[in-house]
Every structure is written in structure tokens, then in C-alpha cells.
């Protein structure tokens, strides 16, 4: 992820979240996907002869299951359409194209797919089209490249042997990618900029003076806006911690096991998570005093990543019963 630190204006960063999810198809959608791999388009037929394409698992009118799989033609008619120019990133198509509801001969419902023509002038409701196929097919909707005007493609495809029985498609990959323009809140902007100057800022609540770090611009207990910034020392204590034996996604630099801890800075009323290092894991304890270990000055940026980890400061521990969120030994449960 890239970050920008403008001289003026807001901090921002690209945030991309993506994951290759899978979808189990089940037998009916699986038959449709298996058909595509074989250059066939199949639907599911209701008792009255109505054919759903793509094959549907359930009759939307009655809720009854649909299990009879039938072939339909690879040619059909455009029922309605739009023109896509330019295609969005991640689209199966690089060039401008039609996007149409195509009702194939033998089907009672239309399916959505691309119509691959040169210009919007070549599109028309009612136009006849035929399927064109990818050479390498895997059992996915993109095995079907799209539709072209009937007679301009390769004609009826030479159907390959049906493989459905031997090796049906059972799941498909459905990668999802979300791109965010990540803009920290106003309070966080100030907090992050201070990091570049090796300072840690918090917010003080106008209600009772409680100090929040990181600052959120609001007291979570009351919803009251917090605007007063206070600077905090680079030392505090461990309120609580976890020794994690699992690698963190995206942190291959971090050997396991490692200690993550709730760091309670002196003068702050809530903690935040930080990495603890500079001692053996089994020396870490609730109440241990720690201090920040910063990146080299020339590497500082407007980010909480400036603090590499927290190390023991050697000062006497905070008593366990006063460590961290002190409610845990206080009035917390007296009224339960």
C-alpha cells in the first residue's frame, strides 16, 4: 500500500483488500459451469417445461427444487442491452462492448453476458447472436468469451465430449478486490503528523478529563466531541498481552512467537496494541514498565509504524491490580 504525505492537505493511503474466495457450486450451478467447460450452455427445466438459463437451483415462483438439466442452443436473441465504455478494471473485457440479456433458443429466461462488437451502432434489441468460446476453459462464466452477431463467429461449436459425469465442476474461484481511498479522521490526521515529529498525541475528554490515545475526536462513552490535544510521554506499562504463535498475514518479517500487548501510556486512560521486544517472551508480565523504541530519525513518517516495538524500561512494575484498565479489580462487577 502506498502512502502520501502532502505538505498540505490530508494524509491518505491506498488500501486494497483482496481475497480469492471460492464458491461451492452444488449440483445444478455445477452442471452449468461444467457445461461451459465443454462449450455447452445448460439450463434447468421446470415440470411445465420452462427452462431457466443459467441453470437455477430453485424455482423462484414456488420454492421447489429444479434438478433436470437440459441443453439449450448457443445462439439466441438480445432482449435488452447497454454499452460499456470503458470497461472497469477487473472486467473480463479490455475493449468497449455491449452488455446484454441474451435469451438463448430453448431457454425461457435470458442470461447476462458481453456482446463483442466494434461499436454501439452494431447493437440492437432483437439482434441474433452466437456464443464464442475461450480456447482454455476451466468451468467458469468467462469460459464464454461473449456473443457476436450470428454468422460472424465460428458457427455452432464442435462440442467436446461431455465430462460432467467423470469430473464435474464443484467449485469456482471468485476473487474479490476492494480498493479504498483511506483517509484518516481529522483527529487521526493530527495524531499521525505528530508521529513524524516523534511525538505521541492524545485527546482529552471535556467530560472528565480522560485521555484517549490514539485520539478519535470523540469520547466513546458519551459521544461528546474531543478537540483538546495533549502530548504523552513515550513510556507506560503493559496492561495485558498475548503470546502469539501464529504468523500474521502480511508480517512475514515477524518471527513467532511474538508478544502483542495493550500499552497504557503514562497519563492515558485507554490502551492500544503494540509489539513487545527486547526481552524474553516469558519475562513479559502484566504491569511491566515499557518504553518506545523508535525508527531512526531519517526514517520517521506520519505513521504509528514509527514505533518499532516497546521494550522493558527496567522501572518497577505497576502493581497488577492497578495495571491496564483498572476497572477489572474495581467496581466492575459489584452490581452483577
Amino acid at each position: 500500500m502506498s502512502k502520501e504525505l502532502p505538505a498540505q492537505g490530508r494524509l491518505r493511503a491506498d488500501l486494497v483488500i483482496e481475497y480469492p474466495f471460492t464458491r461451492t457450486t452444488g449440483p445444478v450451478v455445477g452442471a452449468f459451469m461444467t457445461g461451459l467447460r465443454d462449450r455447452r450452455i445448460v439450463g434447468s427445466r421446470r415440470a411445465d417445461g420452462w427452462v431457466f438459463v443459467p441453470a437455477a437451483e430453485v424455482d423462484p415462483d414456488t420454492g421447489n427444487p429444479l434438478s433436470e438439466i437440459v441443453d439449450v442452443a448457443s445462439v439466441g436473441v438480445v432482449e435488452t442491452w447497454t454499452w460499456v465504455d470503458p470497461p472497469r478494471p477487473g472486467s473480463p473485457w479490455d475493449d468497449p462492448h455491449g452488455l446484454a440479456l441474451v435469451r438463448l433458443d430453448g431457454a425461457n429466461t435470458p442470461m447476462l453476458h458481453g456482446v463483442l462488437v466494434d461499436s454501439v451502432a452494431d447493437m440492437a434489441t432483437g439482434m441474433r447472436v452466437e456464443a464464442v468460446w475461450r480456447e482454455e476453459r476451466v468451468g467458469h462464466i468467462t469460459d464464454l468469451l461473449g456473443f457476436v452477431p450470428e454468422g460472424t463467429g465460428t458457427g455452432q461449436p464442435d462440442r467436446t465430449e461431455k465430462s460432467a459425469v467423470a469430473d464435474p465442476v464443484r467449485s469456482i474461484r471468485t476473487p474479490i478486490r476492494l480498493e479504498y481511498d483511506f483517509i484518516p479522521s481529522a483527529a487521526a490526521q493530527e495524531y499521525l503528523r505528530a508521529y513524524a515529529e516523534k511525538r505521541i498525541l492524545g485527546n482529552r475528554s471535556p467530560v472528565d478529563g480522560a485521555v484517549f490515545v490514539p485520539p478519535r475526536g470523540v469520547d466513546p462513552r458519551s459521544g461528546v466531541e474531543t478537540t483538546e490535544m495533549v502530548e504523552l510521554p513515550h513510556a507506560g506499562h503493559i496492561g495485558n498481552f498475548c503470546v502469539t504463535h501464529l504468523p500474521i498475514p502480511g508480517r512475514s518479517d515477524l518471527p513467532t512467537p511474538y508478544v502483542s500487548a495493550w500499552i497504557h501510556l503514562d497519563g492515558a486512560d485507554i490502551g492500544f496494541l503494540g509489539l513487545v521486544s527486547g526481552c524474553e517472551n516469558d519475562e513479559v508480565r502484566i504491569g511491566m514498565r515499557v518504553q518506545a523504541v523508535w525508527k531512526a530519525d531519517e526514517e520517521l513518517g506520519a505513521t504509528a509504524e514509527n514505533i518499532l516495538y516497546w521494550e522493558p524500561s527496567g522501572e518497577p512494575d505497576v502493581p497488577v491490580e492497578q495495571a491496564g484498565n483498572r476497572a477489572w479489580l474495581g467496581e466492575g462487577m459489584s452490581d452483577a
Partner: protein
Amino acid sequence: MGSLGEHTAVLGVGQTKYQSTRGDVSIAGLVREAALRALEDASCTWADIDAVVIGKAPDFFEGLMMPELFLADALGCVGKPILRVHTAGSVGGSTALVATSLIQGRIHQRVLTLGFEKQSESNATWALSLPQPFSVSINAGAGGYFSPIIRRYMARSGAPDLIGCMVAYKDRRHALLNPYAHLHQPDLTFDQVVDAPMLWDPIRFSETCPSSDGACAMVLGDETAGDAAGGPVAWVHGTAMRSEANNFPGRDEVSPQASRDCAAEVFAKAGIVDPRTEIDVAEIYVPFSWYEPMWLESLGFAERDEGWRMVEDGSTGIDGGGLPVNCSGGVLSSNPIGASGMIRFAEAALQVRGMAGEHQVDGAQKAFGHAYGGGAQYFAMWVVGANKP
């Protein structure tokens, strides 16, 4: 009991066999399987259902958004109202309560409610560890969040170190009595639980929940529908939901205020003064073993710092003669996250209907169902009884 509104009955329950991968069905097929079983149990058809309320885990958990759109036809819901509820891990419980409220408010006579998840299609630990720009990425999954809270409970209660292992072993033994449970480990020994590797110290691998595929559904009905049912129904005696922020000064993470308030409300509505003696069986959301004693205290089944003694003396076991907890095997034995809360609610209903099979608590009259989610921020609870309140 005016605050309950219309009397609500659980007419039917349907569950799928929880397992690591249901490679044979789509999500639509999975939810339908649970829904059809609930309809059959309730002696209903799709036509008897007025509305559907569904819940699932957060979208990143399985990369699935707007299930209410794409599952409507699989749930016989075309032309009817369908709602989706979203409260992180507690969603199964709050989904059941939103459905209940549609009966209590006399909006509908029969509502189908359902929770589901196919963890095999995704990775929840990944989804819970998403890095944020400008921040240090050091959290790995839910265990990383809950481990420090468990450590805090251990420190303040003085509980022996192996209490968590005792809970895990007990729930895995219970699971052997439940044909729907994911983990069936008949040869598991207590020593194996203890010797399992640490994942998020002090949480061992054996003290965590599995990743499951599964769905759970219930058909809820109004008083007329409950009275007309041919078989036993479970009557709703009390419902409550609460939430709170996850980090504020004075927060008691071990026993959040929202948890205590939610318990107080649900038991008051159900007319229960001493839950420890008046509740016959409890299904409590325990994704990490130590949460059993922690919630026993927070919910009022035990005094503060004393919940672990109920574990230690065996009184939360199905044969313990005390308060049986998670006779189904609990979340520790089956965890399709989006369904896990509803399973707790449904198992409570099965107990008071006398239909829990081998894990039935004899003569259970009142049962408690519980779910929590987020950073122990969202709570949903109900009390159901064999008799009308």
C-alpha cells in the same frame, strides 16, 4: 409480561450436520437444507411463512454480500419480506431476536429465521487481521484479541491454569452426544487437550473453536400458531440485546457492562430471580474455552471470580447435577460463525421441547440461549420455556 408483546413459540428447528467442508452444496443449497428441516419440524410449508429474517457473519469472512438478495428464492421468500441482520459473531442470536420481535409486535404470524456460514470458502482469521494504513499490524485473528482478556480473567480470579482445558474436554465429550456437531473425537483424552500447542498463549489449539460449514433455522409462530402445533413447542419467556464500544476508560473487558445489563433484562423479563437454580440448561457462546467461566459470572450464574469452580466441580457437565452448559458441544465443537448464535438459541428450544436427543437434559423446563460478538461488544439472549409464560 406486557413487555413481551405477543407470545412467541419456536415451532420448528432445522440444522445441517456441521463439518469442515460441505463441498456438495452451494450456499443456497445449504441454507435450504436447514430451512426445510425447520419447516418439517414445524409441520409447515413455504406458504405458511410470512417473512424471513437471515443472518450471516461479516462480509469479509466469506466474501459474500447481500445474502438477502441472492438467497430469497432458495428460502421460498419471493414476494415476502426478507431482512438481513448484522451484528458480528452474535448475529445468529440477534437474528433470532429480530424475527421474534416481528411476532411479538404482531406484524407476522409465522417467521422463518436462519443463520449460516461456509467457512470453507474463505478464511475468517485473514478477515480478522486486515492491515490498516498508518497502523502497526500485529493482531492475528480473534484469539489475538481475546487472549489478553482471558489472561486478565485468570489473573483476577485465581483460577487454576487447566480450567480452560476442562471446558474444552467437557464440550468435546458433549459433542459426541450430538449428531450435528462438527468435532466428534471419541478417543480424545484430557491429556491431549492439555498437551495441544499454544496458539495465542494462554489459548491452546484445543481450546479454540473449529471452522465449520453449516446452517441453522427456526420457525417462530405467534400464540395461535403455538397453541395449534401438534408437537411440543418452546415458548419465549424473555429476550434482550445490548451493545457497547470496545475501548473506553473503565471498561471491564472480562465482564462488559452490556453483558451484565443484557442478562439482567432477559432474566427480569422471564421472571427469573436466581438463574443458577431456575435455569435448567444453558447454551452459552464459548468460542474459546475460558469464556465458559467468564460468562457464567457475567450472566449471574456464578459470583464474580467463582465461575471456574462450577467447571472444576463438574457442575456444567450434562451429568454434573448442576447447570449443564453447552450439551450440544457448543461453539467449541461446531462454529459456522454466522449460525453459531442461532444454534445456541435453537438448542435451548430443543431442550425445553424435550427433543435434544442424546444430549437432552431430563425434564428441562427453562433454557437459556446466548450469543456475543465483536470485541465482546454485542450481546443477544433469550430464555425459553416448556410452558407459556
